[in-house]
């Protein structure tokens, strides 16, 4: 037990960041599963982070309530945004959501109450590790179950062929919007948790790089299963720690790893398990029945 205690003490920040990143990766997973490439989740994270931190500071709002309000604020903003941007598809959708992220960042930079460029400092460290991991377990469970429901099947259908999905009676725009708002809710919650881990936040924590990083967690881990984003976030967040012995070659190795995954496992690391199953079936000549 002592060993575990020591380990947690030494790496508690990394472990917390892994959990938060896994939540963020799941937040973008929802839209990716519906086949929509959106890059607004860093901004939703920012809204959750600032809202909860400001509520706690100025109104003394209890921590769980502040987190919830932050998450709902992100979701409420996502609804009208989604109605507008889902007229677009593919790379245009990605650019539009990215532009939204920039707008949020610039607004945070210009507003006195958010501390402008200096951001907010001295946020009380109210987030415990178990808060993060309980949230992660809950979100992963809910999304896993939703994946197997009528809603999850509709998302998959939209991803496979939007026109055919509409012809099965699926209200395509509404389902896309649902995915987007759910993603924003999760990202907002994760943002609130993360603000109360890191002591200080500033607008550049939630910039373009963050949006792309979140996307990379989910894509490298793999979109077919909810375990993918969690796995991707865990691996890519801990990799800098694990690769420390490589010193200067660390970033190069990380880049090569990403490239390898994208080239050889385009559906993500979780498909490794599937590949093995397919190979076993090949060996017994049973691919036809699978």
């Amino acid at each position: 037990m002592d060993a575990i205690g020591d380990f947690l003490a030494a790496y508690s920040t990394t472990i917390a960041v892994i959990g938060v990143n896994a939540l963020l990766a799941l937040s973008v997973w929802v839209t990716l599963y519906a086949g929509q490439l959106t890059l607004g989740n860093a901004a939703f994270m920012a809204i959750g982070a600032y809202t909860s931190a400001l509520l706690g500071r100025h109104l003394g709002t209890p921590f769980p309530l502040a987190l919830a309000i932050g998450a709902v604020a992100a979701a409420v903003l996502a609804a009208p945004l989604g109605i507008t941007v889902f007229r677009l598809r593919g790379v245009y959708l990605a650019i539009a959501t990215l532009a939204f992220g920039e707008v949020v960042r610039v607004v945070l930079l210009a507003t006195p109450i958010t501390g402008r460029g200096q951001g907010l400092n001295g946020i009380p460290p109210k987030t415990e590790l178990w808060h993060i991991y309980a949230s992660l377990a809950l979100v992963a469970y809910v999304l896993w179950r939703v994946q197997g429901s009528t809603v999850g099947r509709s998302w998959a259908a939209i991803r496979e062929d939007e026109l055919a999905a509409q012809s099965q009676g699926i209200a395509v725009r509404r389902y896309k919007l649902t995915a987007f708002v759910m993603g924003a809710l999760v990202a907002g919650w994760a943002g609130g948790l993360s603000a109360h881990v890191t002591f200080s936040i500033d607008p550049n924590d939630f910039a373009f790089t963050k949006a792309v990083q979140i996307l990379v967690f989910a894509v490298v881990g793999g979109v077919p299963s909810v375990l993918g984003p969690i796995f991707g976030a865990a691996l890519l967040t801990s990799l800098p720690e694990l690769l420390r012995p490589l010193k200067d070659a660390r970033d190069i190795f990380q880049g090569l790893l990403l490239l390898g995954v994208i080239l050889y496992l385009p559906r993500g690391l979780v498909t490794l398990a599937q590949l093995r199953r397919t190979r076993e079936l090949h060996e017994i000549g049973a691919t036809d029945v699978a």
Partner: protein
Amino acid sequence: MSLELAALTKRFGGVTAVNAVDLVVAPDQVFGLIGPNGAGKTTLINVIAGQLRPDGGTVRFDGRDITGVEAHERVRRGIARTFQGGRLFKGLSAFENVLVGRHTRMRSDVLASLVPFRTRTEDQERERADALLERVGLRQRAGMLAGELAYGDQRRLEIARALASEPRLLILDEPAAGLNPTESARLRELMRALVADGITIILIEHDVRLVMGTCERVAVLNFGRKIAEGSPAEIQADPAVREAYLGAEDAA
């Protein structure tokens, strides 16, 4: 089921793909829609099923004007379709394709799904999907990805998926394209069985023999206009049709 098109017009830029078409499809029959390539057949059914908005005219289904109704809502009202060349969800299993087809007839089970057991409705839906696959002869392949099925199987799966929405009007866009004679004969049997079950079918087809052997009534389109309508025998005897379509084919 009743379908009435009145003065239906659809333009793409300077081209009038469908030009003031009037059409009444009576229930419980296979209604054939034929015409040379580019005659406007697919555009017409895209307007009927709601994928395209017409520039003029009305579509009435069961006596109600559905011209402005969205495509997904038309499925709920009983119009299902397949696509020329097929549009399956290739990354989903055959079974899942049919389940997606059940979408409008299933209650949303998001909340129920949070509880980790299977509900009775879910079991019923699964049985229904299995029965549909059985009907088109794909029960054994239920777990295969749709994209990995043989071509003929894919065509039949698309029909099963369309049937899953319990349509009263089923629109089939060239369902026999690429099928061998045996498969084509099975398709004809399936269509007759569906009509016997009270489903009306609009069949777009290039295989003239299939159309003539299956349809009670046939309409002919050419350059977006309806140039003839009648029984298969009448259509075959119609000089305008011979010139526009059958004649051109004879010459080739």
